[in-house]
Protein backbone atom coordinates (compact mmCIF):
# COMPACT_ATOMS: atom_id res chain seq x y z
CA UNK A 1 0.00 0.00 0.00
CA UNK A 2 1.13 3.52 -0.72
CA UNK A 3 0.97 6.36 1.73
CA UNK A 4 -1.55 8.93 0.71
CA UNK A 5 -1.63 11.61 -0.42
CA UNK A 6 1.82 11.19 -2.00
CA UNK A 7 0.54 8.95 -4.77
CA UNK A 8 -2.54 10.99 -5.60
CA UNK A 9 -2.50 12.24 -9.16
CA UNK A 10 -3.06 15.83 -10.20
CA UNK A 11 -6.84 15.43 -10.57
CA UNK A 12 -7.15 13.95 -7.12
CA UNK A 13 -5.01 16.63 -5.55
CA UNK A 14 -7.18 19.31 -7.11
CA UNK A 15 -10.41 17.60 -6.17
CA UNK A 16 -9.34 17.08 -2.58
CA UNK A 17 -7.67 20.45 -2.07
CA UNK A 18 -8.84 21.78 1.25
CA UNK A 19 -9.95 18.40 2.51
CA UNK A 20 -6.51 16.94 3.22
CA UNK A 21 -6.72 17.60 6.93
CA UNK A 22 -10.10 15.97 7.25
CA UNK A 23 -8.91 12.89 5.39
CA UNK A 24 -5.81 12.84 7.56
CA UNK A 25 -8.02 12.92 10.65
CA UNK A 26 -10.06 9.99 9.36
CA UNK A 27 -6.88 8.07 8.58
CA UNK A 28 -5.54 8.68 12.08
CA UNK A 29 -8.83 7.64 13.59
CA UNK A 30 -8.84 4.32 11.76
CA UNK A 31 -5.13 3.65 11.50
CA UNK A 32 -5.34 0.88 14.05
CA UNK A 33 -8.57 -0.70 12.95
CA UNK A 34 -8.26 -4.43 12.31
CA UNK A 35 -6.99 -5.12 8.79
CA UNK A 36 -9.50 -5.54 6.03
CA UNK A 37 -8.83 -9.23 5.45
CA UNK A 38 -9.53 -9.96 9.10
CA UNK A 39 -12.76 -7.99 9.03
CA UNK A 40 -13.87 -9.83 5.93
CA UNK A 41 -12.97 -13.20 7.44
CA UNK A 42 -14.96 -12.33 10.54
CA UNK A 43 -17.93 -11.37 8.42
CA UNK A 44 -17.65 -14.76 6.70
CA UNK A 45 -17.53 -16.44 10.12
CA UNK A 46 -14.36 -18.37 9.37
CA UNK A 47 -12.07 -17.19 12.18
CA UNK A 48 -11.18 -19.19 15.26
CA UNK A 49 -13.77 -18.61 17.97
CA UNK A 50 -11.91 -16.11 20.15
CA UNK A 51 -10.84 -13.93 17.23
CA UNK A 52 -14.25 -14.23 15.65
CA UNK A 53 -15.89 -12.90 18.79
CA UNK A 54 -13.41 -10.07 19.11
CA UNK A 55 -13.69 -9.00 15.50
CA UNK A 56 -17.48 -9.17 15.57
CA UNK A 57 -17.47 -6.94 18.63
CA UNK A 58 -15.35 -4.48 16.70
CA UNK A 59 -17.63 -4.67 13.68
CA UNK A 60 -20.68 -4.05 15.83
CA UNK A 61 -19.12 -1.00 17.43
CA UNK A 62 -17.35 0.51 14.40
CA UNK A 63 -19.63 1.97 11.80
CA UNK A 64 -16.61 2.68 9.62
CA UNK A 65 -15.37 -0.90 9.53
CA UNK A 66 -18.87 -2.15 8.99
CA UNK A 67 -19.43 0.23 6.09
CA UNK A 68 -16.06 -0.69 4.61
CA UNK A 69 -16.80 -4.41 4.56
CA UNK A 70 -20.38 -3.95 3.42
CA UNK A 71 -19.51 -1.53 0.64
CA UNK A 72 -16.80 -3.77 -0.75
CA UNK A 73 -19.10 -6.75 -0.59
CA UNK A 74 -21.95 -4.96 -2.32
CA UNK A 75 -19.81 -3.06 -4.78
CA UNK A 76 -17.54 -5.88 -5.86
CA UNK A 77 -17.84 -7.60 -9.14
CA UNK A 78 -17.16 -11.25 -8.36
CA UNK A 79 -16.09 -12.22 -11.83
CA UNK A 80 -16.41 -15.97 -12.31
CA UNK A 81 -13.56 -18.23 -13.28
CA UNK A 82 -12.93 -17.76 -16.96
CA UNK A 83 -12.39 -20.76 -19.19
CA UNK A 84 -8.62 -20.59 -18.90
CA UNK A 85 -8.67 -20.43 -15.10
CA UNK A 86 -11.26 -23.17 -14.96
CA UNK A 87 -9.13 -25.44 -17.11
CA UNK A 88 -5.97 -24.58 -15.16
CA UNK A 89 -7.71 -25.50 -11.94
CA UNK A 90 -9.00 -28.73 -13.43
CA UNK A 91 -5.49 -29.67 -14.58
CA UNK A 92 -4.20 -29.07 -11.08
CA UNK A 93 -6.94 -31.17 -9.50
CA UNK A 94 -6.50 -33.93 -12.04
CA UNK A 95 -2.77 -34.02 -11.40
CA UNK A 96 -3.36 -34.48 -7.68
CA UNK A 97 -6.05 -37.06 -8.07
CA UNK A 98 -3.68 -38.92 -10.37
CA UNK A 99 -1.00 -38.85 -7.69
CA UNK A 100 -3.47 -40.01 -5.05
CA UNK A 101 -4.67 -42.86 -7.25
CA UNK A 102 -1.17 -44.05 -8.09
CA UNK A 103 0.40 -46.81 -5.96
CA UNK A 104 2.04 -45.40 -2.86
CA UNK A 105 5.81 -45.25 -3.16
CA UNK A 106 7.95 -46.87 -0.51
CA UNK A 107 9.83 -44.85 2.06
CA UNK A 108 12.30 -42.61 0.35
CA UNK A 109 15.52 -42.08 2.27
CA UNK A 110 16.43 -38.49 2.79
CA UNK A 111 19.56 -37.53 0.99
CA UNK A 112 21.20 -34.42 2.39
CA UNK A 113 23.49 -34.16 -0.60
CA UNK A 114 20.54 -33.45 -2.86
CA UNK A 115 19.16 -30.52 -0.99
CA UNK A 116 20.62 -27.24 -0.09
CA UNK A 117 19.77 -24.08 1.45
CA UNK A 118 17.70 -23.81 4.57
CA UNK A 119 19.14 -23.07 7.94
CA UNK A 120 17.32 -23.28 11.21
CA UNK A 121 18.42 -21.68 14.39
CA UNK A 122 17.18 -19.77 17.39
CA UNK A 123 15.69 -20.83 20.63
CA UNK A 124 12.11 -21.67 21.28
CA UNK A 125 9.40 -21.56 23.85
CA UNK A 126 7.55 -24.59 25.08
CA UNK A 127 3.90 -23.66 24.87
CA UNK A 128 0.82 -25.47 25.99
CA UNK A 129 -1.19 -27.12 23.31
CA UNK A 130 -3.46 -30.10 23.24
CA UNK A 131 -2.07 -32.92 21.19
CA UNK A 132 -4.54 -33.31 18.43
CA UNK A 133 -4.36 -36.96 17.67
CA UNK A 134 -0.94 -38.14 16.64
CA UNK A 135 -2.32 -41.53 15.70
CA UNK A 136 -5.10 -40.08 13.59
CA UNK A 137 -3.24 -40.14 10.35
CA UNK A 138 -4.97 -40.70 7.08
CA UNK A 139 -4.39 -43.98 5.43
CA UNK A 140 -4.96 -42.46 2.04
CA UNK A 141 -8.03 -41.45 0.14
CA UNK A 142 -10.54 -44.09 -0.78
CA UNK A 143 -10.98 -43.84 -4.49
CA UNK A 144 -14.04 -45.66 -5.71
CA UNK A 145 -13.45 -48.00 -8.62
CA UNK A 146 -15.75 -46.00 -10.83
CA UNK A 147 -13.89 -42.77 -10.18
CA UNK A 148 -13.10 -40.81 -13.26
CA UNK A 149 -9.70 -41.27 -14.80
CA UNK A 150 -7.58 -38.15 -14.39
CA UNK A 151 -7.07 -35.89 -17.35
CA UNK A 152 -3.30 -35.85 -17.05
CA UNK A 153 -1.14 -38.92 -17.44
CA UNK A 154 -0.61 -40.72 -14.15
CA UNK A 155 2.98 -41.39 -15.06
CA UNK A 156 3.87 -37.70 -15.27
CA UNK A 157 6.71 -37.13 -12.82
CA UNK A 158 5.68 -35.32 -9.68
CA UNK A 159 7.47 -32.31 -8.36
CA UNK A 160 9.04 -32.94 -4.98
CA UNK A 161 9.86 -29.94 -2.84
CA UNK A 162 13.28 -30.21 -1.26
CA UNK A 163 13.93 -29.72 2.43
CA UNK A 164 16.91 -29.72 4.71
CA UNK A 165 17.36 -31.36 8.05
CA UNK A 166 17.00 -28.59 10.65
CA UNK A 167 19.34 -28.23 13.56
CA UNK A 168 18.17 -29.21 17.00
CA UNK A 169 16.60 -26.37 18.93
CA UNK A 170 15.53 -26.30 22.54
CA UNK A 171 12.90 -24.14 24.10
CA UNK A 172 13.27 -21.85 27.08
CA UNK A 173 11.84 -24.45 29.40
CA UNK A 174 14.98 -26.43 28.69
CA UNK A 175 17.34 -23.52 28.08
CA UNK A 176 16.38 -21.66 31.24
CA UNK A 177 16.75 -24.67 33.48
CA UNK A 178 19.01 -23.49 36.27
CA UNK A 179 20.06 -26.83 37.66
CA UNK A 180 22.21 -29.54 36.21
CA UNK A 181 20.71 -31.12 33.08
CA UNK A 182 20.68 -34.46 34.84
CA UNK A 183 18.23 -33.03 37.37
CA UNK A 184 15.65 -32.16 34.74
CA UNK A 185 13.66 -35.29 33.81
CA UNK A 186 12.57 -33.75 30.53
CA UNK A 187 16.14 -33.04 29.45
CA UNK A 188 17.19 -36.48 30.54
CA UNK A 189 14.42 -38.04 28.46
CA UNK A 190 15.14 -35.79 25.51
CA UNK A 191 18.86 -36.47 25.33
CA UNK A 192 18.84 -39.91 23.61
CA UNK A 193 16.53 -38.62 20.88
CA UNK A 194 18.63 -35.51 20.37
CA UNK A 195 21.83 -37.55 20.31
CA UNK A 196 20.40 -39.94 17.72
CA UNK A 197 19.19 -37.03 15.65
CA UNK A 198 22.55 -35.30 15.73
CA UNK A 199 24.34 -38.55 14.95
CA UNK A 200 22.26 -38.95 11.82
CA UNK A 201 20.50 -42.08 13.06
CA UNK A 202 17.19 -40.95 11.66
CA UNK A 203 15.16 -44.14 12.22
CA UNK A 204 16.17 -44.28 15.88
CA UNK A 205 15.56 -40.54 16.31
CA UNK A 206 12.10 -40.99 14.80
CA UNK A 207 11.23 -43.79 17.23
CA UNK A 208 12.58 -41.91 20.23
CA UNK A 209 10.76 -38.69 19.38
CA UNK A 210 7.58 -40.65 18.76
CA UNK A 211 7.89 -42.16 22.23
CA UNK A 212 8.57 -38.73 23.71
CA UNK A 213 5.47 -37.32 22.07
CA UNK A 214 3.39 -39.75 24.08
CA UNK A 215 5.01 -38.64 27.29
CA UNK A 216 5.30 -34.92 26.50
CA UNK A 217 2.38 -34.19 24.17
CA UNK A 218 2.54 -30.46 24.87
CA UNK A 219 6.21 -29.87 24.13
CA UNK A 220 6.47 -27.99 20.88
CA UNK A 221 9.98 -29.16 20.08
CA UNK A 222 8.97 -32.78 20.58
CA UNK A 223 6.05 -32.28 18.22
CA UNK A 224 8.21 -30.50 15.70
CA UNK A 225 11.05 -33.01 15.68
CA UNK A 226 8.63 -35.94 15.69
CA UNK A 227 7.34 -34.60 12.41
CA UNK A 228 10.76 -33.81 11.03
CA UNK A 229 12.18 -37.23 11.85
CA UNK A 230 9.20 -38.88 10.18
CA UNK A 231 9.93 -36.78 7.09
CA UNK A 232 13.58 -37.76 7.21
CA UNK A 233 12.41 -41.37 7.09
CA UNK A 234 10.15 -40.70 4.12
CA UNK A 235 6.94 -40.97 6.17
CA UNK A 236 5.37 -37.75 5.00
CA UNK A 237 1.74 -38.65 5.62
CA UNK A 238 2.47 -39.59 9.21
CA UNK A 239 4.46 -36.40 9.71
CA UNK A 240 1.41 -34.24 9.14
CA UNK A 241 -0.25 -34.68 12.55
CA UNK A 242 2.73 -33.74 14.75
CA UNK A 243 3.75 -30.89 12.45
CA UNK A 244 0.20 -29.60 12.42
CA UNK A 245 0.17 -29.69 16.19
CA UNK A 246 3.55 -27.97 16.37
CA UNK A 247 2.35 -25.20 14.06
CA UNK A 248 -0.88 -24.83 16.00
CA UNK A 249 0.98 -24.26 19.27
CA UNK A 250 1.44 -20.72 18.04
CA UNK A 251 4.92 -20.29 19.42
CA UNK A 252 6.30 -17.53 17.17
CA UNK A 253 9.82 -18.92 16.96
CA UNK A 254 8.46 -22.32 15.95
CA UNK A 255 5.42 -21.52 13.86
CA UNK A 256 7.18 -20.57 10.66
CA UNK A 257 9.48 -23.60 10.69
CA UNK A 258 6.62 -25.94 11.55
CA UNK A 259 4.48 -24.47 8.79
CA UNK A 260 7.28 -24.80 6.28
CA UNK A 261 7.96 -28.45 7.08
CA UNK A 262 4.24 -29.14 7.25
CA UNK A 263 3.83 -27.70 3.76
CA UNK A 264 6.72 -29.77 2.46
CA UNK A 265 5.32 -32.90 4.11
CA UNK A 266 1.92 -32.24 2.57
CA UNK A 267 3.44 -31.75 -0.84
CA UNK A 268 5.51 -34.90 -0.56
CA UNK A 269 2.39 -36.74 0.66
CA UNK A 270 0.58 -35.70 -2.51
CA UNK A 271 -1.53 -32.94 -0.98
CA UNK A 272 -0.43 -30.27 -3.38
CA UNK A 273 -3.40 -27.98 -2.95
CA UNK A 274 -3.03 -27.68 0.78
CA UNK A 275 0.74 -27.47 0.50
CA UNK A 276 0.50 -24.76 -2.12
CA UNK A 277 -1.81 -22.77 0.11
CA UNK A 278 0.71 -22.88 2.95
CA UNK A 279 3.67 -22.12 0.67
CA UNK A 280 1.74 -19.21 -0.76
CA UNK A 281 1.07 -17.81 2.72
CA UNK A 282 4.73 -18.22 3.70
CA UNK A 283 5.79 -16.61 0.44
CA UNK A 284 3.59 -13.55 0.84
CA UNK A 285 4.26 -13.18 4.55
CA UNK A 286 8.03 -12.90 4.17
CA UNK A 287 10.46 -14.38 6.64
CA UNK A 288 13.07 -17.08 6.74
CA UNK A 289 11.32 -19.49 4.42
CA UNK A 290 9.73 -16.95 2.09
CA UNK A 291 12.11 -17.40 -0.84
CA UNK A 292 11.91 -21.17 -0.72
CA UNK A 293 8.16 -21.04 -0.32
CA UNK A 294 7.79 -18.78 -3.36
CA UNK A 295 9.98 -21.17 -5.33
CA UNK A 296 7.85 -24.08 -4.13
CA UNK A 297 4.69 -22.39 -5.38
CA UNK A 298 6.30 -21.92 -8.78
CA UNK A 299 7.37 -25.55 -8.85
CA UNK A 300 3.89 -26.78 -7.99
CA UNK A 301 2.29 -24.53 -10.58
CA UNK A 302 4.69 -25.48 -13.30
CA UNK A 303 3.17 -27.81 -15.89
CA UNK A 304 4.26 -31.41 -15.45
CA UNK A 305 7.34 -32.30 -17.46
CA UNK A 306 6.84 -34.84 -20.17
CA UNK A 307 8.40 -38.22 -19.44
Amino acid at each position, binding site marked *: *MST*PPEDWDQ*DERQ*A*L*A*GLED*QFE*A*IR*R*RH*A*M*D*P*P*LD*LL*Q*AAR*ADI*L*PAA*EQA*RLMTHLESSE*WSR*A*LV*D*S*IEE*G*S*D*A*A*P*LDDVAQQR*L*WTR*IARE*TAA*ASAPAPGPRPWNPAVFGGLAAAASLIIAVMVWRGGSGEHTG*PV*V*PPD*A*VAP*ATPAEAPRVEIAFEKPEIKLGPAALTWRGAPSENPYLVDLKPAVDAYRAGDDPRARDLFAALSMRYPQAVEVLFFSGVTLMLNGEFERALAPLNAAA*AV*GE*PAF*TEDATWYLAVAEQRAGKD*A*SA*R*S*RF*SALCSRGGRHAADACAAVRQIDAPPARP
Partner: protein
Amino acid sequence: MEFEDLYRQHVQAVFRFALSITRRRDVAEDLTSDAFLALHRELGSIDASQLPAWLLTVVRNRARDMWRHQLVEERYAVRESRELAMAPDGPGLEDWILRSADLKPVHRACVMLRYVSGMTRSEIAAEMGLSETQVKGHLQYALTLLRKAHGVRQA
Protein backbone atom coordinates in the same frame (compact mmCIF):
# COMPACT_ATOMS: atom_id res chain seq x y z
CA MET B 1 -22.25 -38.65 -12.75
CA GLU B 2 -18.53 -38.60 -13.32
CA PHE B 3 -16.07 -36.50 -11.37
CA GLU B 4 -15.23 -34.14 -14.21
CA ASP B 5 -18.93 -33.56 -14.85
CA LEU B 6 -19.41 -32.69 -11.20
CA TYR B 7 -16.46 -30.33 -11.43
CA ARG B 8 -17.86 -28.55 -14.49
CA GLN B 9 -21.29 -28.33 -12.92
CA HIS B 10 -20.27 -26.92 -9.56
CA VAL B 11 -16.92 -25.19 -9.95
CA GLN B 12 -18.35 -21.72 -10.48
CA ALA B 13 -20.61 -21.89 -7.44
CA VAL B 14 -17.79 -23.22 -5.29
CA PHE B 15 -15.34 -20.62 -6.54
CA ARG B 16 -17.79 -17.76 -6.03
CA PHE B 17 -18.44 -18.90 -2.49
CA ALA B 18 -14.72 -19.23 -1.79
CA LEU B 19 -14.14 -15.77 -3.21
CA SER B 20 -16.95 -14.32 -1.15
CA ILE B 21 -15.41 -15.50 2.10
CA THR B 22 -11.75 -14.94 1.30
CA ARG B 23 -11.91 -11.98 -1.08
CA ARG B 24 -8.77 -13.23 -2.83
CA ARG B 25 -8.89 -15.05 -6.13
CA ASP B 26 -5.68 -17.00 -5.57
CA VAL B 27 -6.86 -18.25 -2.19
CA ALA B 28 -10.32 -18.93 -3.58
CA GLU B 29 -8.77 -21.10 -6.28
CA ASP B 30 -6.80 -23.01 -3.66
CA LEU B 31 -9.91 -23.63 -1.60
CA THR B 32 -11.90 -24.66 -4.65
CA SER B 33 -9.19 -27.12 -5.56
CA ASP B 34 -9.15 -28.49 -2.01
CA ALA B 35 -12.89 -28.97 -2.06
CA PHE B 36 -12.88 -30.93 -5.31
CA LEU B 37 -9.97 -33.05 -4.15
CA ALA B 38 -11.96 -33.87 -1.03
CA LEU B 39 -14.91 -34.70 -3.23
CA HIS B 40 -12.75 -37.01 -5.30
CA ARG B 41 -11.67 -38.85 -2.17
CA GLU B 42 -15.26 -39.22 -0.96
CA LEU B 43 -16.88 -39.74 -4.31
CA GLY B 44 -18.25 -43.12 -3.36
CA SER B 45 -20.03 -41.90 -0.26
CA ILE B 46 -21.38 -38.56 -1.47
CA ASP B 47 -24.80 -38.35 -3.02
CA ALA B 48 -25.03 -35.88 -5.89
CA SER B 49 -28.01 -34.29 -4.18
CA GLN B 50 -25.68 -33.15 -1.41
CA LEU B 51 -23.83 -30.97 -3.87
CA PRO B 52 -22.82 -28.23 -3.98
CA ALA B 53 -23.63 -27.76 -0.27
CA TRP B 54 -21.08 -30.42 0.70
CA LEU B 55 -18.39 -28.66 -1.33
CA LEU B 56 -19.22 -25.30 0.23
CA THR B 57 -18.86 -26.80 3.69
CA VAL B 58 -15.42 -28.08 2.76
CA VAL B 59 -14.48 -24.62 1.53
CA ARG B 60 -15.66 -22.98 4.73
CA ASN B 61 -13.80 -25.51 6.88
CA ARG B 62 -10.61 -25.08 4.86
CA ALA B 63 -10.89 -21.32 5.18
CA ARG B 64 -11.19 -21.71 8.93
CA ASP B 65 -8.11 -23.93 8.98
CA MET B 66 -6.24 -21.32 7.01
CA TRP B 67 -6.99 -18.57 9.50
CA ARG B 68 -6.17 -20.77 12.44
CA HIS B 69 -2.57 -20.69 11.25
CA GLN B 70 -2.21 -16.97 10.94
CA LEU B 71 -1.70 -15.76 14.48
CA VAL B 72 -4.79 -13.66 14.24
CA GLU B 73 -4.93 -12.89 17.90
CA GLU B 74 -1.47 -11.40 17.97
CA ARG B 75 -2.12 -9.18 14.96
CA TYR B 76 -5.31 -7.84 16.39
CA ALA B 77 -4.22 -7.42 19.98
CA VAL B 78 -1.56 -4.88 19.06
CA ARG B 79 -3.91 -2.89 16.90
CA GLU B 80 -6.71 -2.92 19.40
CA SER B 81 -4.56 -1.54 22.19
CA ARG B 82 -3.36 1.32 20.02
CA GLU B 83 -6.81 2.04 18.76
CA LEU B 84 -7.91 2.95 22.25
CA ALA B 85 -5.31 5.68 22.38
CA MET B 86 -6.71 7.46 19.33
CA ALA B 87 -8.95 10.37 20.23
CA PRO B 88 -11.84 10.70 17.78
CA ASP B 89 -12.22 13.93 15.85
CA GLY B 90 -15.47 15.47 14.78
CA PRO B 91 -17.60 13.83 12.05
CA GLY B 92 -17.89 16.04 8.93
CA LEU B 93 -16.27 14.28 6.00
CA GLU B 94 -16.38 10.86 7.63
CA ASP B 95 -20.06 11.27 8.26
CA TRP B 96 -20.63 12.13 4.60
CA ILE B 97 -18.66 9.12 3.40
CA LEU B 98 -20.64 6.82 5.66
CA ARG B 99 -24.11 8.23 5.10
CA SER B 100 -24.36 10.09 1.82
CA ALA B 101 -27.28 8.64 -0.10
CA ASP B 102 -25.62 9.75 -3.33
CA LEU B 103 -22.77 7.31 -2.89
CA LYS B 104 -23.38 3.80 -4.09
CA PRO B 105 -21.54 1.03 -2.25
CA VAL B 106 -18.94 0.77 -5.00
CA HIS B 107 -18.16 4.52 -4.77
CA ARG B 108 -18.05 4.42 -1.00
CA ALA B 109 -15.73 1.43 -1.04
CA CYS B 110 -13.41 3.06 -3.58
CA VAL B 111 -13.21 6.29 -1.57
CA MET B 112 -12.55 4.47 1.69
CA LEU B 113 -9.91 2.22 0.21
CA ARG B 114 -8.19 4.93 -1.82
CA TYR B 115 -8.17 7.94 0.46
CA VAL B 116 -8.25 6.34 3.90
CA SER B 117 -6.79 2.86 3.57
CA GLY B 118 -4.23 4.23 1.12
CA MET B 119 -4.60 1.61 -1.57
CA THR B 120 -3.47 2.16 -5.12
CA ARG B 121 -6.03 1.92 -7.90
CA SER B 122 -4.67 -1.45 -8.95
CA GLU B 123 -4.96 -2.76 -5.39
CA ILE B 124 -8.55 -1.59 -5.23
CA ALA B 125 -9.24 -3.17 -8.58
CA ALA B 126 -7.88 -6.49 -7.35
CA GLU B 127 -9.82 -6.26 -4.11
CA MET B 128 -13.10 -5.54 -5.82
CA GLY B 129 -12.80 -7.55 -8.99
CA LEU B 130 -12.89 -4.40 -11.13
CA SER B 131 -10.60 -2.97 -13.78
CA GLU B 132 -8.38 -0.03 -12.95
CA THR B 133 -10.34 2.05 -15.41
CA GLN B 134 -13.55 1.25 -13.59
CA VAL B 135 -11.96 2.17 -10.27
CA LYS B 136 -10.75 5.48 -11.71
CA GLY B 137 -14.25 6.21 -13.01
CA HIS B 138 -15.88 5.45 -9.66
CA LEU B 139 -13.38 7.65 -7.87
CA GLN B 140 -13.94 10.55 -10.27
CA TYR B 141 -17.67 10.30 -9.77
CA ALA B 142 -17.31 10.17 -6.00
CA LEU B 143 -14.97 13.14 -5.98
CA THR B 144 -17.44 15.17 -8.00
CA LEU B 145 -20.09 14.46 -5.38
CA LEU B 146 -17.63 15.20 -2.63
CA ARG B 147 -16.73 18.61 -4.05
CA LYS B 148 -20.39 19.52 -4.32
CA ALA B 149 -21.23 18.35 -0.83
CA HIS B 150 -18.34 20.14 0.79
CA GLY B 151 -18.33 23.24 -1.38
CA VAL B 152 -14.74 22.75 -2.47
CA ARG B 153 -13.96 24.64 -5.62
CA GLN B 154 -11.78 23.16 -8.22
CA ALA B 155 -8.54 25.07 -8.75
